């Protein structure tokens, strides 16, 4: 069975979590060949019941499937995890805009890290990311579409 890990800040009431859970539930009702595992940084009461397993993000250290992270914090955590074969950073929010007293070097290390493949949610975000960080966004996936995320990870030519 193919694996897919998705790390978020929390599974509470926010747009990313709601879309992720809803889309993942729909996807899992149709497809039985993918095992989705959700990782959260903070445990918050779920707004929608997940039909997939969830666990604390520290468990990513033993995970062996490709993993998508969705925030700077989770991206920072995943970079040095050796067991994860493919690491994707799905840039849901342009977080560097909201950080107070930001340090360029730390942000640069994450956004331009060769271990992370960048994905984002729309054309404008992709343009801004490419302009600011001199990196290529590999794919644009709207509204946390799990089907597209899975196809990006598993159905590209060089993937096993």
């Amino acid at each position: 069975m193919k694996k897919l890990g998705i790390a978020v800040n929390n599974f509470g009431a926010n747009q990313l979590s709601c879309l992720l859970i809803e889309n993942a539930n729909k996807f899992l009702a149709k497809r039985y060949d993918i095992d989705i595992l959700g990782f959260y940084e903070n445990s918050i009461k779920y707004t929608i019941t997940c039909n997939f397993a969830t666990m604390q993000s520290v468990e990513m250290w033993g995970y062996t499937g490709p993993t998508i992270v969705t925030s700077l914090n989770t991206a920072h955590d995943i970079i040095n995890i050796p067991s994860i074969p493919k690491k994707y950073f799905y840039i849901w929010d342009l977080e560097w805009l909201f950080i107070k007293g930001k340090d360029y070097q730390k942000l640069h290390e994450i956004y331009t890290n060769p271990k992370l493949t960048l994905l984002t949610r729309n054309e404008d975000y992709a343009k801004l990311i490419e302009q600011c960080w001199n990196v290529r966004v590999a794919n644009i996936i709207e509204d946390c579409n799990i089907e597209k995320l899975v196809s990006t990870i598993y159905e590209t030519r060089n993937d096993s």
Partner: protein
Amino acid sequence: MKFLFSAGKGLEAQSVRLGWQNALRSLGYTCVVWNEDEKNIFDMFDEFQPNFFVIFGEDLDRAHLKAIAESHKKAECPCIPIIFATHRDNVDEKEKYLLEKFVEKKLLTHLFSVDFQNHAKLWEECLGVPTLSCLPALDLIRYKQSVIDNMYASDITFIGQYENKKIPFACEFLFPLSNQGLKVKIFGYGDWPIANYLGSISNYDIFSKIVFNSRINLSFSYPESKTFSERIFKIIGCHGFPLAHVLNENHLNLLKELEIPYFRDGKELVSKLILFLHHDQYSREQIKNLVYKKAIEKHTYLHRIEQVLSLFDINIKDAVHEKIRDSSK
């Protein structure tokens, strides 16, 4: 020779202090920065016994005055204060009051202004003490040429602190550039309210990479500040291509002397950007090299130190020339 420095309150004072320290250390002198929170000035003088006490006007207080006076009485080689008047348009009243006390007690032989000659004259008239213009300069230790790295490439870069007073100028010069399809990047302290503000830079290597890999490095300030910022020399030191905003006549003369490309208003900025962005690599390199060559002829911290120490009958001309020759190789 031993130099004791006051820490400096503002970012600019700290930057100038670092420039001085690096240059003095490269000449083999001992430099110590005194942190007023950790040790009182009297203990510092007793333990370190400096030959020179370099203090910024904004750091001055009565304790310094007393400590220097005592050191003059006690030590065989008395401490000579080098005082930098901070860069304001007018003479700061608090600084003036304290400096007058220094003059009264005959502790002050020279004063140095971190600004152009006209500001130095203002102090000279005020205190009756010879005042020298001692502008910020090029720090050959901190700012060096970097390597080509596409990860840091940009069309236009501005590195500077975000302040309320800079907003009108940023709105006129800087922000509209982002909408022209150019890769504009802004760095510095103070959370600039714009998407291409990418944070502060705390590492000199990264600073050099950013400046070196940018096609044009803007340098601007607000005219009321009357501040001569070290920024332009940082750009030159990293072999970056500078484009400076003219603050006043004295500033313009300096830019002309160093052959630095400049602009006076938004219109001129756009025309110069179009001109320089269309330059090929070779002509850009030529301009950069010429500016660097001019800067290291006269405007490094080593030159400033040589100028200051010559007033105290200390000649370091040969050592300075040797250092500059080494660094320009």
